[in-house]
């Protein structure tokens, strides 16, 4: 491992954790803006120090493990969510040369890590030994397993057109056309599946405050709850980064800005979209979400795969 690689790892980690913490402020201000309120505006300029206040509060809260909980699994669960999401960032090319590990199974590694993320919800809900938490875990598990399938299938169109699982190759293949032009269906389905995978509103049925108190993390407090919280924001950043890399040309862009700046602009656009979705859409029912996935999205994504494959073969032969 060279010094450069260590610097990249440290830099990526530093920037990501700061983005995740900063999103607390961004989200609350944006939601307030769209709901005709002011939002947090007291601590520091524009209220940005709310991030610091929130973090300090989480650190000093009592970190309580319920006596009826399964202690070790209870402690393990919040660590899994942050670890699995941070591991996924390993494969993302932020700019030419700025990538932690240029794996030739890039997309598969991302899918593997996102499937590890299910454990945090299932184990958190189960170890809490609480009815609401268990209901949340049950919903979370079925939602995430179902939408993982569509997420994987929606990416295969991109893989077919590129002929590689490597994210660097995928970015390079978008020199002429972004894949959102050639794979619009894949993009829409990946976006929907991404929201479901990060269990953000409108698909936040595993935690659904109005039905399940806080769902799978109802029993968590202090920094363990903070881990779930940060994990969610890291998840949004991850899905946005994947959308940018796979469908919107990654760091490609006109030359007047450096590649990293293009990546950041596109990334923040999609993070903003995630927050806007939270502000504007109602939550579907649990059975509606699952039925919608298997009865509508699955046939569409399979048809997309078939047509993409046929066109790719035809283009190769002509």
């Amino acid at each position, binding site marked *: 491992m060279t010094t450069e690689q260590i610097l990249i790892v440290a830099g990526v980690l530093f920037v990501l954790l700061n983005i995740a913490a900063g999103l607390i402020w961004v989200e609350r201000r944006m939601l307030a803006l769209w709901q005709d309120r002011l939002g947090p505006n007291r601590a520091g300029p524009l209220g940005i120090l709310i991030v610091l206040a929130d973090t300090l509060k989480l650190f000093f809260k009592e970190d309580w493990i319920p006596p009826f909980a*399964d202690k070790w699994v209870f402690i393990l669960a919040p660590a899994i969510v942050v670890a699995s999401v941070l591991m996924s960032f390993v494969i993302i090319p932020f700019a030419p040369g700025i990538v932690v590990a240029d*794996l030739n*199974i890039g997309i598969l590694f991302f899918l593997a890590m996102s*499937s590890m993320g299910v454990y945090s919800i299932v*184990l958190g809900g189960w170890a809490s030994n609480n009815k609401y938490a268990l209901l949340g875990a049950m919903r979370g598990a079925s939602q995430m397993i179902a939408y993982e399938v569509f997420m994987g299938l929606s990416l295969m169109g991109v893989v077919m057109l590129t002929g590689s699982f490597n994210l660097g190759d995928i970015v390079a293949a978008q020199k002429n056309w972004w894949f959102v032009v050639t794979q619009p269906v894949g993009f829409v389905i990946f976006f929907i599946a991404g929201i479901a995978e990060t269990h953000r509103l409108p698909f936040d049925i595993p935690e659904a405050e109005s039905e399940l108190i806080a769902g799978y993390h109802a029993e968590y407090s202090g920094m363990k709850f903070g881990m779930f919280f940060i994990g969610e924001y890291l998840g949004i950043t991850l899905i946005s980064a994947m959308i940018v890399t796979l469908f919107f040309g990654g760091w490609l862009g006109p030359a007047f800005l450096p590649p990293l700046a293009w990546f950041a602009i596109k990334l923040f656009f999609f993070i903003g979209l995630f927050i806007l979705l939270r502000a504007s859409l109602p939550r579907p029912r649990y059975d509606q979400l699952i039925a919608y996935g298997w009865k509508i999205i699955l046939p569409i994504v399979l048809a997309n795969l078939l047509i993409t494959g046929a066109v790719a073969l035809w283009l190769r032969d002509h």
Partner: protein
Amino acid sequence: MSTLFYLSSTIAIASTILVITRYHPVHALLYLAVSFLAVGMIFLSLGAPFVAALEIIVYAGAIIVLFIFVVMMLNLGKDTAQQEKEWLKPKVWLVPSALVLVLLVEMIILLFTDSDQPLKVSVVDPRRLALSLYGEYIIAVELTGFLLMAGIVGAAHIGKHMHTPLHRFLQNGEGKKEKPKPLRPVESLKNEQTVLHDQ
């Protein structure tokens, strides 16, 4: 590479032993997940990254989660652990352990007599794997497809049930496939209306 291989093999064996000896089913399943991750790591260290990723996505990421999902719903508590404890008495262990011990001794002897062959690592990229799966081994892939299809049809058959809405407002509306038939005579409905009027 061979250090990584031996390290992850040790983890795989240790966690698999823990799967068998844990009394609590969810803890056992967690060790099984660790075991699958270790097996994925073994594949990676032997130069099969594609198989490693699939091992993690399919086994650790989907199948074990489904197992935990089911076990979670069964609400197994201390009683089950107690029952397991009674089933797994030392007497039960004796014969299987003796048999496995013989195998272990055999393996150790083999390792030390035939050790001049080094661990051969050749990286197989996804493209080559795909070409051999859909070229040379196409019949095996198709047969697996048949097997999975049979499984899906069976599951669909077992899971199928007539949807009978319990709420009277829904009985003629959504989710009703067969011919709607009145669940109770019209007389009783009339009576209900009169009761309502009385209030």
